[in-house]
């Protein structure tokens, strides 16, 4: 009898916990289902339909995808998006790493203050920051007039606005805190005695960094790369406002398809394809990270 009662309890308690758990996350679950899963499913279904002048034909076909992967324009835009996102990621992480390193290792009691200062750019709207970069980088902008005034250049620089460079500069600045924070977290977790042990075993500063600090901060580095890379591929405001014609990216084309071109199914196919490509790049990174963690040393 005693045993029987114990068994029922052992089954009943986790069940009750499961239900309570579901209840706890239900608002979030409803949100996730209606705002993320459902639209995603709709998008994928729509990408299989076809736009027939003003009507949408609801027969399943892969025509849109064929167009996406064969038309040179879409391929160029996709490649450019990946390239710009790659460069933005590289620049952002290269700039963020030393800052995160400094705060984690030399921040001392002022770590909190440094982190607060790093988030200051967020106190203004992203759009306002883009316009500020326009003011800085423009033909008669702060940078050009400053350099002209100093006599360092005779002609205003034009390669810094309305092209891919402007997009890279603006996004690298905008994403910096997002990259600094995960890097800071993983760097500040490194036990200093590990660095002393490496030193004790004969490593100078460079080897110590490459063999201990860098591999141990890899999770933060990968997080930073993904956090910057994924939204950048799909960014649409910055290229629209600062990119000119050379700086347009895939998201701008998706917007065109849903809007002016009135071809929502093609837009959906472009969006789905972009998502798939970004997802595969992300998975590749995660896989590389695990492999590097195993093989470092």
């Amino acid at each position, binding site marked *: 009898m005693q045993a029987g009662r114990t068994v029922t309890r052992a089954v009943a308690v986790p069940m009750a916990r499961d239900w309570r758990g579901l209840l706890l996350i239900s608002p979030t679950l409803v949100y996730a289902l209606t705002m993320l899963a459902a639209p995603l499913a709709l998008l994928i279904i729509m990408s299989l339909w076809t736009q027939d002048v003003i009507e949408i034909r609801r027969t399943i076909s892969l025509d849109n995808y064929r167009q996406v992967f064969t038309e040179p324009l879409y391929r160029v835009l996709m490649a450019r998006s990946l390239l710009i996102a790659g460069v933005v990621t590289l620049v952002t992480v290269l700039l963020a790493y030393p800052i995160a390193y400094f705060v984690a290792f030399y921040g001392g009691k002022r770590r909190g203050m440094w982190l607060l200062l790093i988030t200051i750019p967020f106190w203004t709207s992203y759009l306002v920051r883009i316009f500020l970069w326009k003011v800085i980088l423009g033909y008669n902008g702060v940078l050009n007039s400053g350099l002209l005034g100093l006599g360092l250049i005779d002609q205003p620089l034009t390669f810094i606005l309305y092209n891919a460079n402007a997009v890279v500069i603006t996004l690298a600045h905008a994403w910096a805190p997002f990259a600094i924070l995960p890097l800071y977290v993983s760097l500040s977790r490194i036990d200093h005695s590990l660095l*002393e042990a490496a030193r*004790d*075993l004969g490593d100078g500063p460079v080897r110590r960094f490459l063999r201990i600090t860098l591999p141990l901060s890899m999770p933060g580095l990968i997080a930073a790369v993904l956090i910057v890379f994924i939204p950048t591929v799909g960014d649409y405001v910055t290229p629209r406002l600062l990119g000119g014609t050379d700086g347009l990216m895939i998201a701008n084309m998706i917007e065109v398809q849903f809007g002016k071109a009135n071809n929502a199914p093609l837009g959906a196919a472009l969006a789905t394809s972009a998502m798939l490509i970004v997802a595969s790049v992300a998975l590749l990174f995660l896989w590389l990270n695990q492999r590097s963690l195993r093989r470092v040393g």
Partner: protein
Amino acid sequence: MSNQPIIQVRDVAKYYGDEPALAGVSLDIMAGEFFSLLGPSGCGKTTLLRMISGFDVPDRGSISIDGVDMAGVPPNRRPTNMVFQSYAIFPHLSVAQNVAYGLKRLRLGRVETKRRVEEALALVALEGYGGRQPHELSGGQRQRVALARALVMQPKVLLLDEPMSALDKKLREQMQTELRRLQRAVGITFVLVTHDQEEALLMSDRIAVMFNGSIAQLDSPEGMYRRPVSRQVASFIGMMNFLRADIASIDPSGATVNIEALGSALLPGVSVGKPGSATIGIRPEMLTMLYGDHATAERVFRGKIVDTEYYGDLTLYQVRIDDTATVVTVSMRNTAGRPILQAGDRTRIGWGAESLVLLDPLESAK
């Protein structure tokens, strides 16, 4: 062990603000010996160890290792290796990669590196563990990896910073014995920092007891236990009864002292100090409880037991000496047939003058 000093510390001082962490320490550590720096936390023992390893720089004085002055030599270029208190095992590397870490820079080649790693792992009884990840190891195994990683470098001196403090009692005792065996086997000079006096006594050839940034006494374990120079050292190493005393006279045969509650005694061979007040120390195991009326000793006093602490293998009695307020601790082994006496029982205690230690002459007992 040889008589060649491998480490020479000369008047080394370090200040944090105005507080001296080390106030001018000098000592020689001999090649091949097991040397311990013993003291309470904050006494400067770890600071001294970190200066030998190069992680801290002295404000004054010099340290030389194997005849070479170490001023300006960074830790990565010193012939020392360290076992850290936290072990500092690299979490992203396997056991074998951890042990091979320092060898990589030496470019010994794959075969030689592998051979040395396996040799080092065998030395610490971790054969076949090379492929394990650090998180799969127990505390004791992690410590062995840390040892192997340092020993594989064949350092002239191995520095150990409280290596046992993270282990539980049983494992600690086992590792103490093993570390001692290992040191004898490899013949490398070991410098151990510890706050555990038993550990220091058990493992060391010589011990330096440190208080407030200075060495209070440097001696063999036996010398340290039998002839502590001060009340501070005596109370840090083992248990000790302290009694107030007056040095009545000092002549070639020894010092005559009047001890509270015990009376007058001649300390043979004691010639330090001047007539005046002092402290006399006597270890609890040097006081013998006399069972039966016929048992006798060189000197005897009577008393009443006020408390009994039973430890299994031995019993500690608190005994108030008759006609005084003085309470002394007496330690008795619980050998066969010996009864355990209880509080309130009367007893006779035997003692001898040769087991008395004269401490801090000219300083009154506190």
